[in-house]
């Protein structure tokens, strides 16, 4: 299960992992049962000399019940899974707890820019903090983020948070998270976005309140001028692509 490999570093992580566990148990039982019946039938009805197969049309109700009862049961379990899946979905994507902090996340080929709202907690003011490839959040605070893309479709994915949302150019997409563990976690791009898709990591630093305040005091105001460091113009993109192509050609 995910928690074997990944820390559960946000409130949604626990919720999603529980849902996954529940589905695993339900479909696991069904799967094992179906395969057991399957292999038992193969063994039980293997061809033997002098034993003829039976003629079973399967159209009579008394025969069909062997298929239709499991079938109704599948429906019942489907509904069970649905209820839980939709509840989790609702908690994560439809409704959101009130936001305590704001951050804007801007994706582009092939970098992440993070615009933290800064001490006043309002975006697009002079005390905004812009960082590239590093995002800083405070533990146990609910963040509302606004996701932008400058060029193609990207996806903001933080596996440790079980958080994933596509960034679509032309749209500002809202979401939220609440980190519950301190530490540094990977941010990945989860939608293919061109040559540098695999080289588009960022780091999400979750810190205690004291550490976070100290950091803010240190760097406040760097967002007033847009950080251009990460901007790779079209020309550069093509140059990058060209290099890649030359390498590829040389290898063929």
């Amino acid at each position, binding site marked *: *299960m*995910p928690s074997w*490999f*990944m820390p559960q570093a946000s409130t949604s992580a626990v919720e*999603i992992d529980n849902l996954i566990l529940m589905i695993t148990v339900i*479909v*696991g039982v069904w*799967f094992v049962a*179906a395969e057991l019946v399957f292999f038992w*039938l193969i063994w039980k*009805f293997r*061809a033997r000399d002098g*034993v*003829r*197969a*039976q003629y*079973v049309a*399967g159209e009579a109700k008394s025969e069909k019940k062997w*298929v*239709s009862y*499991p*079938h109704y049961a599948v429906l019942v379990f*489907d509904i069970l899974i*649905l209820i*839980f*899946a939709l509840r989790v*979905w609702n908690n*994560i*994507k439809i409704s959101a707890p009130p936001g305590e902090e704001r951050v804007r996340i801007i994706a582009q*080929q092939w970098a992440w820019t993070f615009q933290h709202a800064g001490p006043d907690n309002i975006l697009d003011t002079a005390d905004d903090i812009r960082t590239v490839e590093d995002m800083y959040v405070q533990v146990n605070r609910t963040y509302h983020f606004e996701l932008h893309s400058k*060029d*193609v*479709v990207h*996806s903001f*994915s933080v*596996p440790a948070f079980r958080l*994933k949302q*596509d*960034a*679509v*150019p*032309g*749209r500002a*997409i809202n979401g939220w998270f609440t980190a519950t563990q301190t530490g540094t976690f*990977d941010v*990945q791009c*989860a*939608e*293919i976005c*061109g*040559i540098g*898709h*695999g080289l588009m990591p960022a780091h999400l630093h979750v810190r205690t309140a004291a550490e976070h305040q100290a950091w803010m005091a240190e760097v406040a105001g760097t967002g007033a001028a847009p950080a251009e460091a990460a901007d790779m113009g*079209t020309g550069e993109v093509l140059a990058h*692509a060209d290099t890649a*192509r030359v*390498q*590829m050609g040389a*290898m*063929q």
Partner: protein
Amino acid sequence: MSAHAIAHEAHGHHEHADPGFFRKYLWSTDHKVIGMQYLFTGMFMAIIGGFTVYVFRMQLAFPGESVPGYGYVNATAYNSLITMHGSIMVFWVAMPVLIASFGNFLIPLMLGCDDMAFPKLNRLSYQIFLLSALVVLSTFFVPGGAFGGAWTSYPPLSASAAYNATPWGAPMWLIAVILEFVAFLLGGINFVTTAMNSRAPGMKMFDVPIVVWMIVLASLVFMGSVGPLVAGAIMLLFDQLIGTGFFNPNTGGDPILWQHLFWFFGHPEVYVVLLPAVGIVAEVMTVFSRKKLFAYRTVVYTALATSVISFFVWAHHQFIAGIDPRMAGIFTVTTLIISVPIAEMMFVYIATMYGGSIRLATPMLWALAFIAEFLIGGVTGIFLGASGADVYFHDTYFVLAHFHYTFFPIAFIGTFAGLTYWFPKMFGRHMNETLGKIHFWGTVVAFNAIFIPLFLAGAGGDHRRIFDYSAFPELASLQPLRQIATIALLVLIAFQPVFLFNFFYSMFRGKRATANPWHANTLEWAAPSPPPHGNFPEMPVVYRGPYEYSVEGREDDYWPQHVPPDDVTVDGPVEAPVAAGGH
């Protein structure tokens, strides 16, 4: 040609009026030849698709190492390779082999007619398909390389060379896909018309073998779902070539529109290839269990229900793509509902074995493996259909392993079941059983060894389409899983020459087959092996359903569809001597 000519030609037509190699094999309107053309083209494309996966799996397991037979893999090449692997395997392997090849070969034979309703349209369909295959292959050699925006081809990445850096590859890929769609629309219209109108006398709707039902339903699903994507592909092509802005947000277009148009087709497409495969499995399982199919009508109805519901589920591919989350809720419901008819269908297949006399010949092994493996693909789909869990699994290796557990059973296991089962009919000879079983076990074990580790990697948060994981320290511990998968892939590939050898050797040197070596009921076994041009010495008449095996009170445990009811001693056409003229 007229019926008389066909009857006349049935024996020894090779000797006189030989139309020449070109007209017979390349320009033929004979449905069997066209089926073979699709089959061999599909096999060739599968080798290309297999080579691409070999290269990029090697890169994933041993990043930065030179791949034997290819060289170093960089990011551009990696993206091109995964894109080509996906699109070739879906559009140029699964579709032609499962629908076009089996459809062409089986529909006229199983329905008891001499050819497709429109033989020339059929030939045209293959030629357009061949052109599309050539176009997509040629993109490997154009400036900029092959398209690298994944087989889903999301704009704006796919819409502009400034983003994807493949000014030739992207539009050519799209043109190839459009051509392929046109080819399958023409082919599908032909299949549907033939199955509706050209059935043998006496063959009622529920006397049609399941595999024909399934291929026809698949063609219908394709026909109904591909239209919007054809329109979308034209729009995307204009975006690429003349700079319109249908999917460009800066001019008021919308990239999400493409995602919808794509998946409106893309999800039904899964059922387009699934249905023929389950049809093949139905034929094989009944013959090798000597059993009537359990609840024939239920199978047809569940297939119909699946086909219709498949139109209602497409947006589950886009749960986190920025679509309205309330709509995502609706699509969660429809997605889980579609598991109900599919589960029922699997139950019916399992129930078919009850009371049977199961003989584990190679085709049966493949058919059983299909059920066992597809169940894994089915149950893991529940995780992805449940929107809450999909937030985590979306675009991870879990998704990849899930759809390979559906597509591999469909496109390979199902195809192998069909090929080994109908091989005697296709070429008049038997394949070698021992080699067949070696190939079976090697392939199936290796297949599981590839994708079970990838399920775990996906559960660990491993994202897809990333050519080098060194930038993600959290995922470093998953490297052994990637290596196991790659090594298993090498094993899988190593076993395929066994099949190819068996296939081509048996085609010319295999044991000769009688007309009905498996003692099956359906009409294709009433024709000689291999069937001559025109198929049947005399056109068959149908008296009963296709699965009357082990009927009580009969000496034989099978009862072919075309044998008149009063005929108690089954002989005549069924035990007809080997047809003249080998392959």
